């Protein structure tokens, strides 16, 4: 069977009483895609993931996995596996037995299921800790066990609920590489819920930004960063100045986005560039290879210029100084209304 999409969502809606958690979601995830669901807390991303897993039923709409409508199927019959945010390892079972749990439920013999479990622990580099109880493992190790436990069911789609949020920054980076490696190796789809745009940009083939139960934009990370559709996406992903479009004759032409690293600063007494705004500098932050300068425009709006360190230190500014933030017309990206 040559189906093109691992997951298709058609008009999926979830209501809890009067509140709408997920509102008319349509989304198609191609085969073997690393998909990140991204958004602020309460945007519906976790509810959407739980509906994919089968721990919630959609109020309306259909969920197709591998071309089959699974909207009403129990979790284990969907070809999905879920890695829980708290890992949800069974505290009374050691790592091997945790990984082998689903095989035990299917009645696989002890020797066979333990051997298979060890192979999956090897895949996540946990062989050394196979006999330990979850309470004897660190957060990162517990996560690897949870990952092995999810993968042993041979899912076509792996669902990950904020898998990296409980780890320290160093481990987070390591785990990120590993997740991507596993996804490529296994050639299955990963659907990864996160509130970190950095994570989504680094990992995703397809990043889906949600807000208020709706999809704001579903695109490749590069498109998401470079061409945000709305002001919300531009602000959430960051790296963009959201500015009022320079309207001719006071005509409202909506908002534009200009990447902060494409904006430079000009002293007020220099020749005025074509596209620029005058403001006063409220913050200067040294970030190593770059310097981030924050300007307040008319006391109402903020604009940021991210300058390479050598360019900045050749012509430094002081807090409180007036300056013009300027960009070239070619870097302007028109935003549409939400």
């Amino acid at each position, binding site marked *: 069977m040559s189906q093109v999409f691992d997951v298709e969502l058609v008009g999926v809606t979830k209501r809890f009483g009067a509140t709408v958690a997920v509102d008319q979601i349509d989304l198609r995830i191609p085969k073997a895609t690393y998909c990140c669901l991204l958004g602020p807390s309460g945007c519906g991303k976790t509810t959407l993931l739980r509906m994919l897993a089968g721990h919630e039923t959609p109020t309306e709409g259909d969920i197709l996995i591998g071309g089959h409508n699974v909207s009403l199927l129990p979790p*284990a019959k969907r070809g999905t596996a879920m890695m*829980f945010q708290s890992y*949800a*390892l069974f*505290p009374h079972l050691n790592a091997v037995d945790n990984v082998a*749990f689903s095989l035990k*439920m299917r009645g696989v013999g002890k020797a066979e299921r333990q051997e298979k479990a060890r192979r999956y622990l090897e895949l996540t580099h946990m062989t050394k800790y196979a006999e330990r109880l979850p309470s004897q493992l660190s957060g990162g190790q517990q996560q690897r066990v949870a990952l092995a436990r999810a993968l042993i069911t041979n899912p076509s789609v792996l669902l990950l609920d904020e898998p990296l949020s409980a780890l320290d920054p160093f481990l987070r980076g390591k785990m990120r590489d590993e997740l991507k490696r596993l996804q490529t190796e296994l050639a299955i789809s990963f659907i990864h819920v996160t509130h970190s745009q950095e994570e989504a940009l680094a990992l995703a083939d397809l990043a889906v930004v949600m807000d208020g139960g709706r999809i704001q934009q579903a695109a490749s990370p590069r498109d998401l960063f470079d061409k945000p559709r709305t002001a919300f996406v531009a602000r959430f992903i960051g790296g963009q100045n959201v500015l009022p479009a320079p309207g001719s004759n006071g005509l409202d032409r909506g908002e534009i986005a200009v990447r902060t690293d494409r904006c430079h600063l000009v002293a007020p007494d220099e020749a005025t560039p074509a596209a620029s705004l005058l403001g006063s500098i409220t913050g200067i932050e040294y970030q190593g290879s770059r310097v981030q300068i924050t300007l307040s425009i008319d006391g109402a709006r903020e604009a940021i210029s991210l300058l390479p360190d050598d360019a900045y230190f050749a012509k430094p500014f002081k807090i409180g100084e007036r300056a013009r933030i300027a960009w070239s017309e070619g870097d302007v990206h028109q935003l549409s209304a939400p």
Partner: protein
Amino acid sequence: MSAEAVAARPWRRKLVPYFQAGPLTLVLALFLIFPIVTIVIVSFFDYNSVQIIPAFILDNYRDVLFSKVTWQTYLNTFGYVIVVWAITLFIGFWIAYFLVFHIRTNTIRIACFLLTTIPFWTSNIIRMISWIPLLGRNGLVNALLLHAGVTGHPLEFLLYSPFSVVVAFVHLNTFFMIVPISNTMARIDKSLIEAARDANASGWQILTNVVIPLSKTGIAIGSIFIFTVVMGDFATVNVMSGGQSASVGLMMRNEMSELQYPAAAANAVVLLVIMLLIVSAIVRLVDIRKEL
């Protein structure tokens, strides 16, 4: 007091923990250790029909350990313990399961918990007397059975029998199973149940592979409650069996009413040792410290 002042007077610093532990030590010494030591001492005393004679004899223990009556009484009491334990465990487990996993709102859960305390809303004596109009020869149950034609003559075993003793024990003590078990169950992370369902576990498999293993400490604590309460009881056995059944507690009470305090004391020491053995066996089986 500043840190330097403490450091300057080290003897004072050393005394502080003793003062902190003092009050509880005093209470325990006065109300736990002193009575037990007294009982142990008295258990070696001699006695006749009118007085207790300070002495050091082993006759009391010989009487307890080598009398056929003692053995039969212990066996009888163990019988009650096992039956009551099994029934309260079964009922208590399922009530706890229902309270924790099936009731969704906390208000209703608290209301249901209060309902389980109903057996304690009246005094022990009234509670036991009120079984008579229910289970007696002309009681409600017999009237109902006769009326429905289930039986031709009133059932005699309903009251003043081992059956009624067990009924009264279960009625009162199931609560002591419900509380610790539901306490342990409430701490089971709900995502573990979802993870088990993800792994294709059926409802029964979730119960045997996740819920029961993770409720073990609660079951152990509840079992200790039941064992100690039923092993030491004399009032329930006496009233509910109509004085026809024996228990260890009852045996001691009878000895005391005949002023044979040293004999009763020896009996009490033996019971204490047996209870300690049972409890330490349970504690070895299940690590209850997780719960404390």
